[in-house]
C-alpha cells in the first residue's frame, strides 16, 4: 500500500460554478437525430449498470434483474446487453450464478455503503467477501466525514487500501457529490481518487439528493481527461442516480463525446448507474422502430 501523500498533492485548480454550469447547459442543447440518436441509445444500454440496492432485495429480484441485463428486449437481437448488474455484497453469488456465460459483469457496492460510517477493517472485509463471491467490480464510498474535515490523507489511504483488497476487480470510487456540495470539493475528491488508483470516478450512491447532475459529470470528465493527459492512465466515469430518461442519457453521452472523446465512448470507461432508465430507452428504441409509442406495460417491470 502506498504511503500517505503530502497534503500539497491534493491541490486542484479552482472551479468556477457559473461557467461550468453554462458549459454543461450549452452541451445539453445538442440535437440528436436519426442514426446518432439510435446509436446513442444503444450505447447507453451497453453502458448501463442495472442496479438494485434496497433493503428488500432478494435472490428472486436479483435473478429478474440479471435476465433483464442479459437480454433487455428478448425479441430484439439488435438491443445489446447491459454492462453490469450492481447489487449488495450478500447477493453477489446469486448474480454471478444468474449471469454465468454472459458478458454482463457483477458489480457490488461495499465499504459500508451508502454512508461508509464503519471501521476500515470491516470495509476491507466486505470488499474481500464480495470479490471472493465473484464480483468483478467494486463500488466503494469515500469517507465524506474525513473529507469534509480536511483529512484528505485518510480518504486517500482508504481508497488505496480498498484498491489493494479488490485485487483484479475494478474499483469505482463513489464521491457522493451531493454531500460534498461544492464543485471545488468534488474536483479535489476526483484528484484524490485518481491518485489513489481508482479505476472509475462515480458520482453518487443514489441515496442522496441531488445525485448525478450534468455539471458534476462534466467536471469529473475533465478530471479524468486531465489525468489521462498527464499520466497516460484512463480512468472511467460513472454517472449514477437520478438519470431516468433517454434524453438525459443522451445529454451525458454528449458530455463524454465532446470532453473526453472516443477513448471514453465505450462501456469500459463510461457507465450509467440506473434502475428505471433502461425501460425508457427501450421505449424510445421501439418507438423509432415501429413509429409509435408502446404502452409501458409492454416492457417488463423487473
Amino acid at each position, binding site marked *: 500500500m502506498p504511503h500517505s501523500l503530502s497534503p500539497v498533492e491534493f491541490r486542484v485548480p479552482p472551479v468556477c460554478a457559473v461557467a461550468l454550469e453554462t458549459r454543461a447547459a450549452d452541451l445539453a442543447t445538442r440535437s440528436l437525430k436519426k442514426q446518432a440518436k439510435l446509436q446513442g441509445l444503444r450505447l447507453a444500454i451497453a453502458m448501463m449498470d442495472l442496479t438494485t440496492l434496497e433493503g428488500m432485495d432478494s435472490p428472486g429480484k436479483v435473478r429478474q434483474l440479471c435476465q433483464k441485463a442479459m437480454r433487455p428486449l428478448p425479441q430484439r437481437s439488435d438491443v445489446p446487453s447491459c454492462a453490469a448488474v450492481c447489487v449488495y455484497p450478500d447477493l453477489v453469488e446469486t448474480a454471478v450464478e444468474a449471469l454465468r456465460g454472459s458478458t454482463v459483469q457483477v458489480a457490488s457496492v461495499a465499504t459500508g455503503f451508502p454512508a461508509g460510517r464503519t471501521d476500515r477493517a470491516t470495509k476491507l472485509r466486505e470488499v474481500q467477501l464480495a470479490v471472493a463471491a465473484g464480483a468483478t467490480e467494486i463500488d466503494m464510498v469515500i469517507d465524506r466525514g474525513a473529507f469534509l474535515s480536511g483529512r484528505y490523507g485518510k480518504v486517500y489511504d482508504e481508497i488505496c487500501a480498498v484498491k489493494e483488497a479488490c485485487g483484479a476487480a475494478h474499483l469505482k470510487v463513489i464521491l457522493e457529490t451531493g454531500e460534498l456540495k461544492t464543485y471545488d470539493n468534488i474536483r479535489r475528491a476526483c484528484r484524490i481518487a485518481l491518485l489513489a488508483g481508482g479505476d472509475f470516478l462515480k458520482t453518487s450512491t443514489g441515496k442522496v439528493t441531488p445525485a448525478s447532475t450534468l455539471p458534476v459529470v462534466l467536471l469529473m470528465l475533465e478530471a479524468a481527461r486531465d489525468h489521462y493527459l498527464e499520466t497516460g492512465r484512463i480512468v472511467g466515469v460513472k454517472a449514477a442516480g437520478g438519470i431516468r430518461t433517454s434524453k438525459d442519457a443522451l445529454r451525458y453521452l454528449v458530455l463524454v463525446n465532446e470532453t473526453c472523446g472516443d477513448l471514453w465512448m465505450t462501456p469500459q*470507461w463510461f457507465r450509467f448507474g440506473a434502475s428505471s432508465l433502461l425501460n425508457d430507452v427501450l421505449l424510445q428504441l421501439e418507438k423509432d422502430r415501429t413509429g409509435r409509442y408502446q404502452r409501458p406495460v409492454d416492457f417488463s417491470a423487473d
Partner: protein
Amino acid sequence: MAKNGEKQQATGTPELVFGGVWKYDPAPESTEHFTIAPRYELFVGGEWKAPKTGKYFATIDPATEKPLSEVALAGDKDVDAAVKAAQKAFPAWSKLSGEDRGRYLFRIARILLERAREFACLETLDNGKPIKETRDVDVPLAAQHFFYHAGWADKLDLLFPGQTPEPLGVIGQVIPWNFPLLMAAWKIAPALAAGNCVVLKPAETSPLTALRLCEVFQQAGLPAGVVNIITGDGKTGAALVRHPGLAKVAFTGSTEVGKEIQRAVAGRGIELTLELGGKAAHLVFEDAAIDQAVEGVVRGIFFNQGHVCCAGSRLLVQESVHDLFVQKLQRRMARIRVGNPMDKNTDMGAIHSAAQLARIRELVAAGVEGGANLHQSACELPKKGFWFPPSLFTEVAMSHRIAREEVFGPVLAVLTFRTPEEAVEKANNTSYGLSAGIWTDKGARILWLAERMKAGVVWNNTYNRFDAASPFGGYKESGFGREGGRQGLRAYVRLAGGLLPG
C-alpha cells in the same frame, strides 16, 4: 477503444481522439414556418413605400451566397420623407402618457417572443450566425430590451429626481450587421420609451429582421411614423445623419464611420452617442479556474464568429500558465463545430460577408508575416459561402497589427504578462476601451483590476454576457454614451430644470 488508448500510451504522449465513434446527424432547423418576400420596400409613416430612387439591391445568405430577397435603396428624398413622417408623428407620441407608450412596448415585446422562431431563422439566414445563438441570445435579448424599457416608460420621473425628462424629438439611428435585430431593439426601445420618434437604417448586408420588425410594429398597432425603417448603403446612412430634422444621432459600427458621423454632427447642437470598435483584453491569472477560463475565452472570441465589438480578441495570460492554457485552448477550439448555421448543433457559422472575410484574411496574413505563430483548428469548411476557421496567434508582440487592430473575426491574439501591474498596462495600451475580461479566483484582485481597466464593461469570470438592465458602452475610440440600463435612457431625454421637491 481502450486498446487505442494503451497503444498511444506506448508510443509516447497521450492524446485525445474525437469524432470517430459517435457522429451527430444533421439537425437543421425547419424553414417551412415562414416566408421571405422577393422584395421589401421602405417602411415610412406606417406604410410600405417604394423608394423614390426606384433602385433595389440584393441581400444574400452568407453561408451559401444565395440571394434571399431584394430591398429598397433609399435616396436623399426617401430619407427626407422618413424624417418628415417621424416629425409628424412626434407631437402626438411624445404627449402620450408613459403608461400608454409602455403598453405599446410590452405588446411589441410579446409579439416578438411569439414570433421568436421565425426571427431566429431569418436572422441566421441573413447574417450567417448559428441558429443556436439567434434562438438563445439575439431574439430573447431583443425582446428583453422591449420589456425592460416598457417598464420604465411610465417611471421616467423616478429616474431623474427633481428634474423633468423630456423627449428629444426625432432620432436618426444607424446600426451594424453583427446583431441586426438586437441592435435595432437596443436603439428603438429606449427611444420610444422616452417619447421620441425614430428613423432607423439597418446595415446594407443584413436588413431583413429589422424590416420584419416593422410587421411587429403594425401588429402592435404602433401609431404611424413613430418608427420608420429605411434600407440602403453607406450613402443612405450619411444622408440620414446629415438631415437637419434630427434631434439626436445614435450610431453603432466602426470607429472610422463613427468619426465621420461625429464630424457631420459637429456644430449642429444635437445629441450624439457612438458605440464603436474594440480590442478587448481578456486577462487570465494563474489562480483562475482554468477549464472554465478556457470556456470564457472561447465564448469571448468565437461567439458570433468574432463579429462582436466587445470580443475578447487579446488574450493576456500569466506567463506561468501560458503553455498549459494555450494547449487546453487549442484542444477546445478543435471541438467547435463550424458549418451550416441553420444546424442546431453548429457552434460557429459563416463569416458575414466577402468584404469582412477579406479583412480577416488580410490581418491574419499580416500576423503571419510579422512572425506570430498561427494555429487554426482543422475543421472542414463548406465550399460555398464565406468561412474562416477558429484561429489563434501565439508569440504575438504588442506592436503587431493583430494585437492593435480590430479583426472582427474568429482570431485571437495571445500575449503574456508577469504581474498584475503589467497586465493592466498592456490591457489599457490600446486606442479602444469598450470591454475587458478578468479570470482570477481572488475577489480583491478583481476589484483592484476593475478599477484600473479603461473599459466600459468589465466582465469577471465570465464574458459576453448582456442584460437590458446593464449599461453598455466605451471609452476612447470605442465611443461614448451608454446603451441599456438607466444610463442608456439618459441619452434619450432632455432634462429640464423642473420643480425642486418640496
